[in-house]
């Protein structure tokens, strides 16, 4: 036993410099985690603080006086629950439809016998680089009567060249023999897509779904541009931005903030923190379990030729 340990140690041959490096590297990694987590935990601490106490500032990781009133207040702001509903709907519907649309197109482009294979590829590659810009896009949406609707979030971004690239790279790596044997059994292309290729593509489908879903969850610009006039369809992040802005104006004059703050158990700073935490919570709870999907996705979509 001892012999083994000694062998292992001598094999590793850790000298003084190596130890110094390992210690420094460990300290660096701990610092990195602290810098990453502190702002989030700090916001969490403020969100769970009593408003009158939070106004004195200086809270770090643990509230001095605990309170969940700020969260109750956030859910009472009309825009927040409605924005959350719209955002959940667009994330689910938008990601599902985008995955289906991109997967089918990637399937077509990755068929080696397809007549217009390279032409169709080029058609979509060009869209990656040339875009009309904000104003022509806005005019198009108006002309198509998409502005002021829910579908303006879903339809314009349905097909994206980057996601096709990721999906196609994965599909190209599958052996042709699956398709050939299915073909011999008389399967048409749609059967091959639905029954053979799609089940094999589950990991990369998860990746693309995740990428699109994160985009939908965090988007606010399209809500601001297309649906500013129609508050029925604004998104969660847009409502958060509106809230943060109004709070900033309130705290801008410290005087008024102080006055309202001392009277109520919720103050702008706690409401703002609670709203921020509430919008990020779902995604923070989910992402650690989805890690392997985005790691594979980035790796195949990226550099591996």
């Amino acid at each position, binding site marked *: 036993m001892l012999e083994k340990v000694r062998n292992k140690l001598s094999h590793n041959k850790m000298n003084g*410099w190596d130890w110094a490096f390992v210690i420094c*590297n460990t300290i660096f*990694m701990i610092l*990195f*985690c602290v*810098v*990453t*987590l502190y*702002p*989030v935990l*700090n*916001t969490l601490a403020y969100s769970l603080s009593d408003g009158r106490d939070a106004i004195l500032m200086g809270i770090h990781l643990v509230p001095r006086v605990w309170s969940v009133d700020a969260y109750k207040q956030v859910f009472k702001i009309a825009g927040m629950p409605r924005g959350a509903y719209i955002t959940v709907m667009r994330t689910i519907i938008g990601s599902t439809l985008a995955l289906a649309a991109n997967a089918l*197109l990637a399937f*077509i*482009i990755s068929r*080696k*016998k*397809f*007549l217009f*294979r*390279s032409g*169709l*590829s080029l*058609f979509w590659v060009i*869209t990656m*680089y*040339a*875009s*009309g*810009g*904000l*104003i*022509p*896009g806005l005019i*198009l949406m108006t002309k*198509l009567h998409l502005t002021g609707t829910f579908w303006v979030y879903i339809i314009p971004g*349905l097909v994206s*060249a980057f996601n096709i*690239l990721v999906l196609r790279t994965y599909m190209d790596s599958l052996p042709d023999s699956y398709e050939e044997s299915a073909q011999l059994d008389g399967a*048409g*292309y*749609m059967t091959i897509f639905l029954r053979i290729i799609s089940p094999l593509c589950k990991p990369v489908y998860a990746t693309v779904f995740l990428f699109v879903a994160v985009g939908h*969850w965090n988007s*606010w*610009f399209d809500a601001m541009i297309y649906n500013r006039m129609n508050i029925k369809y604004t998104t969660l*992040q847009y409502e958060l931005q509106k809230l943060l802005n109004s709070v900033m104006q309130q705290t801008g004059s410290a005087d008024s903030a102080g006055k309202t703050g001392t009277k109520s158990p919720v103050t702008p700073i706690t409401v*703002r923190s609670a709203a*921020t935490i509430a*919008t*990020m919570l779902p995604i*923070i709870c989910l*992402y650690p379990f989805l*890690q392997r999907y*985005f*790691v594979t996705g*980035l*790796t195949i979509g*990226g*550099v591996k*030729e």
Partner: protein
Amino acid sequence: MSLNDKDAPVLKSKINKTELKRQSILLIIAGLYVIYGIVFYYLPLLGWIMAFEDFNLRDGVIHSPKVGLRWFKFLFADGTFPRVIRNTLAMGAINLVATTVTAIGFAILLSEVKNIYGKKLVQTISYLPHFLSWIVVTSIVRDAFGTNGIINEVLVNLHIIDQPISYFMHTQYFWPIVAISNVWKETGWNAIIYLATITAIDPSLYEAAAMDGAGRWQKIKHITLPGIRSTIIILLILNIGNVINAGFEVQYLLGRGVLQPVSQTIDIYVLNYGMKNFSLGTAAGIFKTFVSMFLIFLFNFIAKKTGEERLF
């Protein structure tokens, strides 16, 4: 890397009548995709006409009076737009360099962590900020850099500064703050791909180097860095076009008031002026597209000349 690989085996000769019949369903679907693409990606390019006319809603895109290059001349008539271009390119370049360097550095250091659980934990934490929206991140950044924020608190306690600084009142702090925001948000995420490349390097190279007495630094310099070199260059070329696209959310959300002269980017300019004057906004948008195309081709050209990997 590119979608359009010319090396794919051409099997056209195999396409006979039966195959064509089998493919008919694919051809119909592909046709629908082309219609979608034309409407949502190619039709807006037609809107570029607006940049050369005095657009009004009554006459529409096609029939509005033509004014030639008037809006392009207008863009450069005063110092605003050139300053906007400077801001866009400067922040884009600073962000690209800062996020690339930190991601590579982090990936190399993390690959040196031998404790598998520690490594996993650090990596999981490092992804977190990527999943937050810029709305949330800028709110966090505003708090951290505020007069009562943690940055001032730490700096004052370490006696690096005597008085808390109001970072958002002085223009010289804005670009570094934008870079720091980007680094905070994306370092862990960008490191994923470098870490994957480092993991794929043949371990026997390191063993052989160790036999020859190479130290840790020499191994990084002579094996790890050359191993991820092509990845770095491909990603740089891919992101160079985004240098000009990335200048929107952070700048728009953080750069209000006195910061306008250093924070305004082309996208913000288009949003501020273009929503009132569609022709001017389109002209600025066209300018942006051309600069981004130019940057991509320039970097591709440089990569080609120096014998590096390239996109096309």
